[in-house]
């Protein structure tokens, strides 16, 4: 109240300015440092508890835990190799199917689609990203698997039977529709929304002056996409693919439904297999003793595999940047 009277009566009262105080800056800096540290502590904590939990299995089997293909609860012999191969191959199949489709969706939506079509498709992609993974699993098991068996697997098996290499990779002894390839398909559907929507956002961020000048010198749409847009958004696209790959490597319930859950190695991608995550989901409930340790050790390996994949992604991104 006094201040108000002062300014009203005083002829030329100076504007009162607050001197900047560093208190909040310090609090803010420390709070965000704490948040950043928490990530490191959490990561180290998870890693440590996985290693401790899985240690009895690593100690018992040594390197053989990774290279052995035996998973025998009866005789307490455990090996992770089929699950590691299954994890990597399903994720690879998902990328091979999912990445071109995602990029196609993103390019079409940003460059070619008429406005009335753009909005519904964009919304649909975001909705697909929100579908819980168990729904993908159930849809896969009840809808995709029977169709895949009847129209792809059985006819294909009849054609390729006996042909060298192709006959090994694509022949299915029991054409049930379940298997490594099916899991790869379902995973592809699951990662498409992620890769497509991030890529779309990135392509939209590219300044339109770049595109316009390319068109100005007579480039075709294909040339603009190939030589202007993709190099510009390259780093982000790889980042989006890595996010998708991360999801594909760790996906559990959907894969458990459709992968066929066989703890053995097969040369055919049509045959049932298992992934690290699906095996943990299947056996954790009933596991005791060494089996439990072996499952935690599997989790530890998955952790490590994902880690290595992310490091490779980092290297790729830095290469693209320098180029």
């Amino acid at each position, binding site marked *: 109240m006094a201040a108000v009277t002062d300014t009203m009566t005083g002829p030329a009262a100076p504007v009162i300015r607050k001197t900047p105080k560093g208190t909040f800056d310090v609090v803010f800096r420390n709070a965000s440092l704490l948040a950043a540290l928490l990530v490191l502590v959490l990561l180290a904590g998870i890693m440590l508890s996985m290693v401790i939990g899985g240690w009895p299995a690593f100690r018992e089997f040594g390197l053989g835990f990774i290279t052995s293909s035996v998973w025998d609860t009866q005789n307490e012999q455990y090996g992770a190799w089929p699950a590691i191969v299954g994890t990597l191959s399903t994720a690879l199949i998902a990328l091979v199917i999912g990445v071109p489709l995602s990029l196609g969706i993103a390019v079409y939506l940003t460059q070619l689609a008429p406005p009335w079509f753009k909005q519904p498709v964009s919304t649909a992609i975001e909705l697909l990203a929100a579908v819980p993974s168990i729904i993908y699993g159930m849809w896969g098991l009840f809808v995709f698997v029977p169709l895949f068996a009847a129209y792809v697997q059985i006819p294909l098996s009849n054609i390729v039977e006996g042909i060298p290499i192709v006959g090994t990779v694509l022949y299915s002894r029991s054409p049930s529709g379940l298997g490594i390839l099916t899991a790869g398909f379902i995973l592809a559907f699951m990662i498409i929304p992620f890769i497509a929507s991030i890529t779309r956002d990135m392509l939209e961020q590219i300044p339109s002056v770049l595109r316009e000048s390319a068109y100005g010198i007579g480039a075709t749409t294909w040339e603009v996409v190939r030589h202007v847009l993709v190099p510009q958004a390259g780093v982000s696209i790889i980042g989006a693919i890595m996010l998708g790959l991360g999801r594909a490597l760790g996906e559990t319930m959907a894969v458990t439904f459709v992968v066929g859950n066989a703890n053995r190695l097969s040369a055919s991608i049509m045959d049932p297999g298992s992934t690290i995550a699906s095996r943990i989901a299947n056996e954790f*409930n009933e596991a005791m003793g060494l089996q439990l340790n072996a499952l935690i050790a599997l989790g530890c390996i998955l952790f490590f595999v994902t880690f290595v994949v992310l490091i490779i992604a980092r290297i790729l991104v830095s290469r693209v940047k320098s180029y």
Partner: protein
Amino acid sequence: MRKILILAAATIGLSGVAQAADITGAGATFPFPIYAKWAEAYKKETNIGLNYQSIGSGGGIRQIKAKTVAFGATDAPLKGEDLTKDGLIQFPTVMGGVVPAVNIAGVAPGQLKLSGDIIAEIYLGTIKKWNDPKITAINAGVTLPDANINPVYRSDGSGTTFVFTDYLSKVSPEWKTKIGTNTAVQWPVGIGGKGNEGVSASVKQVANSIGYVEYAYAKQNKLAHALVKNADGNFPAPDDKAFQAAAANANWNEAPGFGISLNNQKGAQAWPITSATFLLVHAKPEKPEEVQAALKFVDWAYKSGDQLALDLDYVPLPANVKDQVRNAWKGVTDPAGKPIF
């Protein structure tokens, strides 16, 4: 203030009642439907509830060893030395059967006949086609396709798998040496479904497949079953009479903790793949009143729960076995060494 006090007093009172009343148990998923039904009826009569977590047999054994529940439940019985080591007493509560479910175009439910060694060879991968001479030999008049067999198994650890592999080990020496008996085994061929639902979904959808599920489950979901040759060479229909016939000829005192296998028992009408499910309690419990309440519940189920079990396609234990179990409960004592039942 007074209102709050009254409310607080009421809440404390209520929770006190609830805690004294609830029996805690955890384990096998196979008997969960009947335990839930019994618990419902028991609560109506006595106002004592049952809190049963169906987390699987392995989980039940873990929990009773950790003493976090009054009783654990398992489909795969513990061996005598394990019972002694952990100071546990084991007894059966109810029985059920496991049936092979098949999906072959043109073959009606109950039409296909199989024998134990044929089933073993199918799951070993040595019999590959439905029109294999070994299968057609016992199926005169049934047209079987020249198609690959798709065997389906439980991918999660399961008491059903224990019963099924125990049966195969009994009828096939090759199965016994190569694969053995467990809640999860190393299947040489086939696809794995998670849970009864996973197995039955695969059998229903995949042409030319065979799977195994609990009879109660197969019946409620109208799965087409196959008949299996029993120890007397007959092919009985899987029903409660056939399961009871298997139990009638068994010698329950042969294994400690009643942990016998009812598989491949003698008897003209005995269904060959039959099993009991078991409860585990500590012989010297730290909280005897909790275990006493659990035993009273089981005693009630033995006396008044048979019809409920039959309604759900489970099979009650024979009366003499129930008496033997009650006798075994005398081994459960309070800290002073006095039997609590």
